[in-house]
């Protein structure tokens, strides 16, 4: 890659697979359980977190030398909170239905441990460009898992994708439903999201044995 040095590129690619914030660091699980029943909500959540983390990491990195370390958590919270409010207002203005669906979970991006974790672990000690890449990389790693989980939960739980029926109509009994298929209601409950994440973790560690912790 010409644009990025090898070291910089790793900041984006690592969190996508071998250092994934959800499946390896097991952070940000709560939102992965709460909003993945619909694929659309998962995508919006992934984009929101992408914005908050990308910008947030840059802001923290820019002011890292003037933050007194005693009150750095408060400063970090202020930055996240400001960004989350922007996201929330934008969603309310342009995608009201969706923002109602996501309800409190947009606000709860503030408490997403991945964000605070990256601020603490990376942005406070690195330059603007590298912090930006790190934020984007981690948000993408988070988003990928969210979208995979959302895909399976919506497909198997409601028989739709992005709200479009793909398996037929369950009430008129067309498509797959005409041969007796039924939606799996368990997929819409949060425990199943945890199990799907668990299966991803399992598959990932089976493919790469080095990831197995003792």
């Amino acid at each position, binding site marked *: 890659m010409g644009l990025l040095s090898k070291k910089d590129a790793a900041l984006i690619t690592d969190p996508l697979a071998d250092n994934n914030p959800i499946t390896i660091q097991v952070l940000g699980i709560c939102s992965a359980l709460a909003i993945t029943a619909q694929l659309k909500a998962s995508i919006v959540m992934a984009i929101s977190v992408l914005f908050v983390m990308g910008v947030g990491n840059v802001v923290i990195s820019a002011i890292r030398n003037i933050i007194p370390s005693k009150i750095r958590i408060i400063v970090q919270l202020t930055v996240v909170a400001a960004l989350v409010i922007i996201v929330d207002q934008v969603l309310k203005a342009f995608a009201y239905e969706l923002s109602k669906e996501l309800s409190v979970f947009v606000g709860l991006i503030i408490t997403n441990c991945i964000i605070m974790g990256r601020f603490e672990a990376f942005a406070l000690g690195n330059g603007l460009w590298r912090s930006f890449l790190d934020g984007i990389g981690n948000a993408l790693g988070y988003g990928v898992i969210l979208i995979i989980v959302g895909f399976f939960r919506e497909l198997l739980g409601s028989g739709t994708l992005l709200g479009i029926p793909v398996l037929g109509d369950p009430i008129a009994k067309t498509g797959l439903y005409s041969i*007796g*298929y*039924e939606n*799996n*209601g*368990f*997929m819409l*409950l949060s425990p199943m999201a945890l*199990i799907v994440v*668990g*299966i991803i973790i*399992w598959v990932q560690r089976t493919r790469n044995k080095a990831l197995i912790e003792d």
Partner: protein
Amino acid sequence: MGLKQNLHNFKVKNKDKKWIPAFNALFTFLYMPNETTHGGTHVKAADDLKRTMNTVIIALVPCLIFGMFNAGYQHYLALGDIESAKGFLGASFWTWDNLVIGIIKVLPLVIVSYGVGLGVEFLFAIIKGHEVEEGYLVTGMLVPLIVPIDIPLWMLAVAVIFGVVIGKEVFGGTGMNILNPALTIRAFLFFAYPTWMSGDKVWVHGAVERAGTPDAISGETLLGAYAQNNTLAGIDYWDMFWGLIPGSVGETSKFLIIIGGLFLIFTKIGSWRIILSTVIGALVMGLIFNGVVDAGWISETSKFYGLMSVPFWQHLIIGSILFGAVYMATDPVTASQTNKGKWIYGFLIGFISIMIRVFNPAYPEGVFLAILLMNVFAPTIDHYVVQGNVKRRMKRLKAKVA
């Protein structure tokens, strides 16, 4: 050279092949292997895993056969084709017609349960390169007994795959599982396809497809009726005890479950502590609820009144608390291991079962949830029992030294 020797030679010749665990499983099912143990002395006992499993299956067979007859009996009774049997040996119960319905509906459940479940076991044995474990033998027998008669077979297959993989194999296979696999399968079905696992249609063969037509028949269980503050007409306590009532395939006959339970206790496979304490727990909770009703703390219009006012001993003969106590709670892998722990574990299963039954009319059959919950707590109970023991002995030691 006999067939056994031929098979043995075949096994030795192919011992490096990937599929050999699958072959070994079938081979040891048929014959005692030729190998003997090497090295020092080993504990020798006849009750190995296969023997244990087979004993439980023998205890389950009467329930299965009864379930087959009951499937047909409930179907024809609901249609009005036959008279009520009036007693365990009633003329209209043990008939060929009833058995035919049972064979058509129940046998496929057994075949799917075993076929899919053992398929998954074989697959994992081949991937992991270990021998096929016998753990599924009992689970495969339990599963058809705890589902409604009309459950679609593909749902059962999906649930069995889920239960065996997520409930057992991910933890390391037989003996390592935290949750009872048969109940994991039932829980999956219950939450995934609630319309096929609860309500007033699924418990009698034919009730679902006739719903909404002039031929509609009721397929309600007693528990479901009680939860709605109703009672079912024409059923007396002896019917409940003998099992001539709608319900999951094999859990209705309390009489046969008690015989199976005694058999398990007698052969020392099932823990009498767990069975007894589960029954005590259920009775205690029932008594508490009866006390609440007698004290006049809830009114007859309360949605809990129907089940709360059931006399405490009746909780044992409606629903599947006895089946759960005898065949599910006693699973040696998921139950508590210590004797004191078994009392606590069983008592809480009975106690919580009745509590869920009364307080959540949407889940009148809370037994499987209670057992799964206590499965999770069993290691904790054991931990504290062992710690308590350690502490007591330390104290004794100190007193001796001083």
